């Protein structure tokens, strides 16, 4: 159960953190349709995050931060709002600060392609809750991927400016890609136990999908190396970029100001 809990927390944090970045687009998108689409994606991921954090808390209540006696804060919120950045297990791709619209398109393409592959496997998890979350989530992720791939093609072939921005975004995010396929001990243990997926096992399939989008768009794969961790530790280990603690300062401020608050 400790492995299951930590595994659900990792997948939940990916969704929670990237959902937050997407929610920062609210009222800032290039057009109303995109504002709606990005909010919708943020909502889908937020929904996944809530189920996964709740599963994590149920599987191992020791994970949930202690709150003042009598606090009505539910476990999902205790996990979301009362952990520090070093206790978040999300990959760094989820947390980097927003750039322009090309950046969100590329990030969403990479994130949803990867996560969809994981969820397709996870639909067969021995943990029934996780399997159900994955079964529901894969439809959402397939839609996100479609949306991102469509815009990837559009920006790649739209104007010189859009292509320039798309390539710059891809170049900037590419160093974060390998981290998604480096197996963390928790993932290895979860795969071993039949509840989770080893991301390295889906690397080939995921790469083929991304390559297909690149080819259709006339984009060549960047050659940037992987972004190093800190002492070999990555996002899953709680070693994040400087951006995460800033993001959490904003995200958690009201909840933390009212540890006994009822919302």
């Amino acid at each position: 159960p400790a492995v299951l809990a930590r595994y659900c927390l990792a997948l939940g944090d990916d969704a929670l953190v990237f959902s937050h970045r997407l929610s920062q687009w609210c009222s800032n998108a290039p057009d109303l349709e995109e504002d709606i689409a990005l909010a919708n994606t943020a909502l889908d991921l937020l929904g996944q995050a809530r189920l996964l954090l709740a599963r994590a808390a149920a599987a191992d209540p020791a994970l949930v931060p202690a709150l003042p006696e009598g606090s009505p804060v539910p476990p999902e919120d205790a996990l979301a709002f009362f952990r520090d950045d070093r206790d978040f297990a999300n990959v760094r791709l989820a947390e980097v600060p927003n750039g322009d619209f090309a950046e969100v398109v590329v990030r969403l393409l990479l994130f949803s392609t990867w996560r969809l592959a994981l969820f397709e496997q996870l639909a067969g998890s021995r943990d029934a809750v996780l399997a159900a979350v994955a079964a529901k989530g894969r439809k959402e992720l397939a839609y996100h991927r479609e949306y991102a791939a469509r815009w990837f093609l559009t920006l790649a072939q739209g104007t010189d400016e859009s292509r320039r921005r798309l390539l710059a975004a891809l170049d900037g995010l590419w160093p974060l890609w390998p981290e998604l396929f480096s197996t963390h001990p928790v993932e290895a243990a979860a795969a071993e136990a039949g509840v989770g997926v080893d991301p390295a096992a889906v690397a080939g399939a995921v790469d083929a999908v991304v390559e297909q989008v690149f080819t259709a768009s006339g984009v060549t794969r960047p050659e940037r190396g992987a972004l190093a961790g800190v002492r070999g530790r990555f996002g899953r280990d709680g070693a994040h970029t400087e951006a995460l603690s800033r993001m959490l300062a904003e995200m958690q401020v009201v909840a933390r100001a009212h540890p006994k608050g009822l919302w």
Partner: protein
Amino acid sequence: MTATAEPELAEHFEATLRRNDRIEPRDWMPEAYRATLVRQIAQHAHSEVIGMQPEGNWVTRAPSLRRKAVLLAKVQDEAGHGLYLYSACETLGTSRRELTEKLISGRQKYSSIFNYPTLSYADVGTIGWLVDGAAICNQVPLCRTSFGPYGRAMIRICKEESFHQRQGYELLMTMMRGTDEQRAMVQESVDRFWWPALMMFGPPDADSPNTERSMAWGIKRNTNDELRQKFVDMTVPQARALGVTLPDPELRWDEQRQAHHFGQPDWAEFKQVVSGNGPCNAQRVAHRKRAHDEGAWVREAATAFAAKQAAAAEETGDRR
């Protein structure tokens, strides 16, 4: 247009109004009716779009994941409302692009309420309860408005607004069951939004010169003061149930009128806000302008891509 004489068309238009039937985009309509409608619908669309900002201000600080989902969904609905309403304007021959230009250059207005800042999470609830509540009072009669696409958009919008209003009220109810600090937040928020909410119905009837014509055209169904009274009567018992006071010392039940007597908002403040000096006017328009300007290259790319696709399709067609 040239086939039928104008007096005849005008008679047909008037007859439709008399029957309380709907005018549709292809029907003939007086230019002044069209212009008034475009202005009113555009102002409403702009209000939805600008209205995303004061609530959006708290999306990233929502204190629970459930509240974050509710708020994000609500702001998303507002974008949707903006879309329907711009579409209704497009049936009248005015493009979204044109209207957006007017919004960001300050030539068209939006509801003055959004020129007030949101200063605590309680404001999210108060906006749902009071601001959406006032909007519903304004909008329910518009479901029966004479112009078809506008009336149909309003039916959908009102349904969603009612949902938002209940959600806002429920947030406040929940906070009132929380800590003392939370209760103080709710009261402080209601104190700030009460008068601006009353201003949402526009100036007193005596100062509202266009009301009569809009009512004759079936674009408006009630006067400002009628709607304001209705809102106050509806809201006072809700405030009591919530356990907050409304910041109006004159507020009392008038047994004779079977309605509440209430004080007048500060109309000088209202004029100041409408004329552009409200606490957030410049900020709201600058935010919209920035987002619009920053998105220009995306919209251009989409247009260029669509043109290339169309050209490619045509070429393929030619070759066949």
